[in-house]
């Protein structure tokens, strides 16, 4: 029993790491631009399908690197033409806009790649369990965790040590002041959005290696990311990180004892956090409330 529990906690952390990658992208966009990006799952799927299309030409590794960039470029185009128009307006409009975008992206992938799922092949070296004992820790899942870890460390370094990163962080706290200091807020938001979509694209490639690649796969992954953000606290990327891992573990462990509640447990966790600490685990008082 203890072993089973231990297995599932480790396993939950692995799942959580994946939620984190998606949630951080969502969180970046929410924090700076006050936009809940419903289309995030759609971009994830696009990233997966682009990787699937590139794989025969560039191989898995090439696709892994190129696909997120292409997804980010699509994201940037969407931001420039559509989303930038609703900045500063009632959040209602950005919600509806990205909601509509989600429809377009899902049906768009269906038009381009077909409704049936696509087999996305990962290198044989990654498709192996590490040991017979810990069979659920495959090299692919370890690789996934490593990619997530490296990406997040890089992201935090970027936010701390580059000029744009510092501005994004400052803008999260007080956009008006940043704007008053002469920073081009428009460009900053575009960059930030592109980074967020890059992360969605990367999540898409990673997900395609483990899950079935289908136009509808993004919608199911969106909600856990939402909850990761709420549990961690809106406005805090560290919070999103912790929140994602937490719900991963909670859902992994619940699946053992009470599988019907493995989704619901995330929401229960969220409800408890909201009751005890309304701003989330790492949320700043007053932010976005």
């Amino acid at each position, binding site marked *: 029993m203890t072993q089973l529990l231990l297995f599932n906690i480790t396993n939950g952390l692995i799942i959580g790491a994946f939620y984190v990658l998606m949630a951080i992208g969502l969180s970046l966009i929410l924090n700076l631009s006050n936009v809940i990006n419903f289309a995030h799952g759609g971009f994830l799927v696009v990233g997966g399908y682009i990787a699937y299309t590139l794989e025969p030409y560039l191989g898995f590794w090439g696709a892994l690197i190129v696909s997120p960039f292409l997804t980010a470029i699509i994201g940037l185009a969407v931001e420039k033409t559509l989303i930038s128009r609703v900045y500063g307006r009632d959040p209602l409009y950005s919600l509806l806009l990205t909601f509509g975008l989600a429809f377009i992206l899902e049906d768009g992938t269906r038009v381009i790649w*077909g*409704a049936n799922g696509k087999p996305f092949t990962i290198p044989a070296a990654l498709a*192996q369990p590490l040991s017979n004992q810990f069979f659920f820790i495959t090299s692919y899942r370890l690789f996934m965790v490593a990619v997530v870890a490296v990406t997040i460390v890089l992201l935090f370094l970027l936010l701390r040590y580059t000029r744009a990163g510092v501005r994004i962080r400052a803008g999260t706290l007080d956009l008006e002041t940043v704007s008053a200091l002469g920073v081009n807020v428009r460009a900053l938001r575009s960059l930030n959005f592109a980074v967020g979509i890059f992360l969605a694209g990367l999540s898409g490639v990673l997900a395609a290696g483990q899950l079935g690649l289908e*136009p509808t796969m993004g919608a199911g992954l969106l909600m856990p990311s939402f909850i990761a953000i709420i549990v961690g606290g809106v406005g805090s990327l560290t919070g999103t990180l912790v929140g994602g891992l937490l719900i991963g573990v909670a859902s992994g462990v619940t699946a053992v004892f009470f599988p019907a509640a493995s989704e619901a447990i995330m929401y229960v966790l969220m409800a408890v956090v909201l009751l005890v600490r309304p701003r989330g685990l790492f949320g700043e008082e007053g932010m976005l409330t």
Partner: protein
Amino acid sequence: MTKRLKLGAVDSRALIKAGGVAGLAQIAAPFVWSARAADTIKVGIIDPFTGVYAAVAQNELIGVKYAVEQINAKGGVLGRPIELLVEDSANDVGTGVQKARKLIERDGIQFLIGDVNSGIALAIAQVSNEKKVLHIVSGGHTDGITGKDCHWNVYRVCNTTKMEANSVAELLFNKYGKKWHFITPDYAFGHTLQEAAQADLKKFGGTVTGNELTPLGTTDFSAYLIKARAANPDVLLVLPQGLDMVNCLKQVAQFGIDKQIHVAGLQQELESLEAMPPEARVGIWMFEWYWKQPGVPGVEKFVADIRQRSGGKVPTARTWFGYTSMMSYALVANQAKTLDGVTLAKALGNFELPPEVKLQPNKCYYRAGDHQLMTSAFVGEALTKPAGDPEDLFKVDTVIPGDKTSPPESETGCTLQWPA
């Protein structure tokens, strides 16, 4: 890319052609349909063309359209051409019910096909029953449709979950072993499928080491697989369908579980196998219809014709479901020389499908007592390496006739209430 766009275009074109001139008026002025010619026989199909069942629903539609083409080329039904009206249920009951009412109340269809989703199929069967319209459920497997929720006007083409379980159980038991562990999708379809398989297993004297109920839409199966492996069974039965099954089998293969435990399941579909990487295509399964049947009359022509209409893809079981549903109506109506729903529903009982429609070696007929089509099960193994054709992903071992897999009529729980 152009393939899909073409299919979209075909939709409206087929709509127009199917009804001759009539359809054009509908596109141009959908709300003023009284102007349309009235000499066509309208047939409706409701299926989830968007959402998680989109792929199988779209294949079904290809089959229905092909059937309409064939029927109209041979003079239609009672000399009148069939006009096909296609409606998307969007995998939503409310939408499905509304579309059913629209097709029946406004468009005045004579015959209804659908839905892939069992829940929606049951809901629209309620509507078709209320309106006394002949209805064939093409792709919803839940037992109730031809069991305790059966209606006089509703027939079903695809298998019941009991039939699926009965077809595979014996082979699985003899070949793989007697300790079974289930991964079951947590909804009615999964429950009945699992119960049926478990009952068979008990009959043979085997044991169940566990049953993991996985919520529909589960993406990560690792927690369940950890538990299943710890139970150390001989066979792991993977019962989820569609995307869930793809996810599950992908993870099974990556964890190397298939190298320690036999992996198998009941219902398998070409759509799912095609969505999986080679290493995930393992185990014993049943197909409800398979495109490669050397020596069976009509199959080769059917496959060739469908390939022409689907951008080179072979027909799947779903394509055949759609085709058979549509053909059944035309055949029975031409035979009975009437469009009256009650008469046709009566005539379809014990109706046997001719070779060019059944496309399988065994006898294939609608059972009168529960309105279930006695169709064969194609039991065999999934192929990691395609045998020749890239879409040949399954090796058929045996083809078991439907009346061997189906429980007797008396056990289905169906009592048909015919209108007075």
